């Protein structure tokens, strides 16, 4: 390698034989694998397959239990509609969980921004477009606030967002006076706020623009995470923040951008939620944080960061939606729905662990 022409007589004596050394790389005999091992391997190489398979199995299972109605285009499109808002929150949540963080404030940001959009457009006569932009900016600002606390003051994300959740939640109660804004008032003054509630009929299926928006958000974020340098940095930070910092990532800057983007996505979800719910209510989505986390973990994204595809969260949200819809159609009491979701979480993640074990 070195360009000197003198004989390679360097180093200690025992190193002199090195130029003759073998450069073979270990190659081991391919042994036969048991079918179950082969499945494990395939899944291990394509981890997002797991939630997809769970989704398909639960679709089939509920089709059998709850009857053909379950499989109608209408019902399937309805499930898509019903998960759209939690799905968007799960997209935002995934971004953060991939950095090894967690955001307990996503739902509060979303509702707060929908209240702000509503107050501005419905009560204060601000044009809807501007009200929405103010909401978007607000979402990004809320994310910025989280991000700065986490990077500058170095608070753990869990604690930060536990605190900011309280702050955002009390602000939204205050701004709304705990009152809902009625659907008819929105229709009269700012119908554009309900834009994402519009539906496209497609042979039995009724797909709302909100459902499409959710899918779009996932695709866009997937692209950003997997095809751009920024995405590599996000994964690297989640994997090992210190190593990422030392290898030249401005980790704080990237983290702040992640929280801002997540806040922005929450605000978009806030807009979409107006279309979905038909009105703006400070009481909605109180459990949205936990629901979004549930979708993310069922989707196989590691809470330790750095591993998992954001698409998993989409399937995770759909799985929960299918379960809820299926159980309801099968006439199961709410109580036992809660019970079933508990087991779903445990079993989905247990399968995921089993697959990962292949590399341990």
């Amino acid at each position, binding site marked *: 390698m070195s360009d000197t022409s003198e004989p390679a007589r360097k180093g200690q004596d025992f190193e002199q034989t090195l130029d003759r050394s073998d450069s073979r790389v270990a190659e081991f005999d391919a042994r036969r694998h048991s079918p179950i091992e082969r499945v494990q391997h395939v899944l291990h190489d394509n981890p997002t397959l797991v939630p997809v398979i769970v989704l398909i199995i639960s679709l089939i299972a509920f089709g059998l239990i709850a009857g053909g109605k379950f499989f109608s285009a209408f019902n399937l499109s*309805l499930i898509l509609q019903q998960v759209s808002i939690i799905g968007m929150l799960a997209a935002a949540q995934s971004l953060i969980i991939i950095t090894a963080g967690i955001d307990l404030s996503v739902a509060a940001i979303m509702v707060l921004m929908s209240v702000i959009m509503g107050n501005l457009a419905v009560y204060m006569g601000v044009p809807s477009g501007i009200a929405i932009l103010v909401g978007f900016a607000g979402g990004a600002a809320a994310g910025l606030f989280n991000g700065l606390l986490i990077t500058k003051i170095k608070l753990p994300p869990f604690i930060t967002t536990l605190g900011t959740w309280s702050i955002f939640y009390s602000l939204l109660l205050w701004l709304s006076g*705990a009152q809902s804004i009625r659907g*008819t008032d929105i229709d009269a003054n700012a119908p554009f706020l309900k834009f994402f509630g519009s539906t496209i009929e497609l042979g039995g299926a009724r797909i709302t623009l909100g459902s499409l928006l959710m899918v779009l958000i996932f695709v866009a974020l997937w692209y950003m995470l997997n095809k751009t340098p920024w995405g590599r940095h996000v994964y690297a930070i989640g994997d090992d923040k210190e190593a990422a910092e030392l290898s030249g990532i401005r980790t704080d800057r990237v983290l702040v951008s992640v929280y801002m983007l997540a806040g922005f996505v929450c605000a978009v979800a806030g807009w979409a939620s107006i279309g979905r719910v038909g*009105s703006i209510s*400070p009481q*909605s*989505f109180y459990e949205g944080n936990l629901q979004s986390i549930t979708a993310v973990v069922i989707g196989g994204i590691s809470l330790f960061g750095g591993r998992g595809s954001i698409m998993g969260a989409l399937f995770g949200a759909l799985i929960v939606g299918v379960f809820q819809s299926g159980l309801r159609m099968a006439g199961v009491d709410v109580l036992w729905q*809660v019970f079933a979701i508990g087991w779903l979480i445990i079993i989905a993640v247990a399968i995921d662990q089993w697959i990962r074990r292949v590399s341990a």
Partner: protein
Amino acid sequence: QTAACLITKTDTNPFFVKMKEGATAAAEEAGIELSAFAGKYDGDVETQVAAVESCIAAGAKGILITPTDSRALVPVITQAREAGALVIALDTQFEPADAADATFATDNFKAGELIGQWAAATLGDEAANAKIALLDLNASEVSVDYQRDQGFLTGFGIDVKDPKDIGDEDDPRIVGNDVTDGSPDGGRTAMENLLQIDPEINVVYTINEPAAAGAYEALKAAGKDEGVLIVSVDGGCPGVKDVEAGIIGATSMQFPLLMASKGIEAIKTFAETGEKPQNSEGLDFFNTGVELITDQPVEGLPSLSSAEGLEKCWG
């Protein structure tokens, strides 16, 4: 100056927010120093217990409380009474009702019954073939939840079996129950779910008006905004406007401001004379009344129009 407390279930429900506004105004007028407390969620016993204790510690002369759990709070308000405070339940009764010195409340069973009767009468003969969706509060089935639900069914003429249990009925006209958390997003999802079970639903009972608004959105999205009767309880101004707009068929109006002002008045009297308020005749509480609000009145069921309702509504 007389000290008094108002303890509501939550601070997120406009009903209680109005109640607090009313009580604060009345207290100011009566020269009473009022502190307000609220639970964090419907069912937050712990926070209400702590609030009562703080009131005792502060030497309150009277406590107005909307018990978030009608049984669980009895021990602590008994303490408050022993400490010499007048305890008045608002909106929700204690079990037993005489655990408090008095109760100023809507008859929630009655509120449900009225809208049930209205729905049955409106449908007429068709009532026998009705398809009913019941949109309740949440999995924990608090008293207002089952009282209204069971009242509605009773009014409609359905056997409720255990009157404290939601969902044990087997009348084929009931398509199903689902929970809404009393919010529009919950109302919408629950309605969608029940429509999935039977798209022919034509009567929808809702625990409150925000849930009704959500249910309406679901119906509208399914192209069923005409021809389905939505009934509800509350009488908040947004709800009455929904009656006016034909979204809600009928609603049972409650009077939180009256509850609040009556309560403050009672504390004032008690502080001055030691006299305690009396219950309505034949009832174990003072009925602050309930008014049926509808623009389609039916025979034999007194009601107010939405225009009249708008004059009395709260919030």
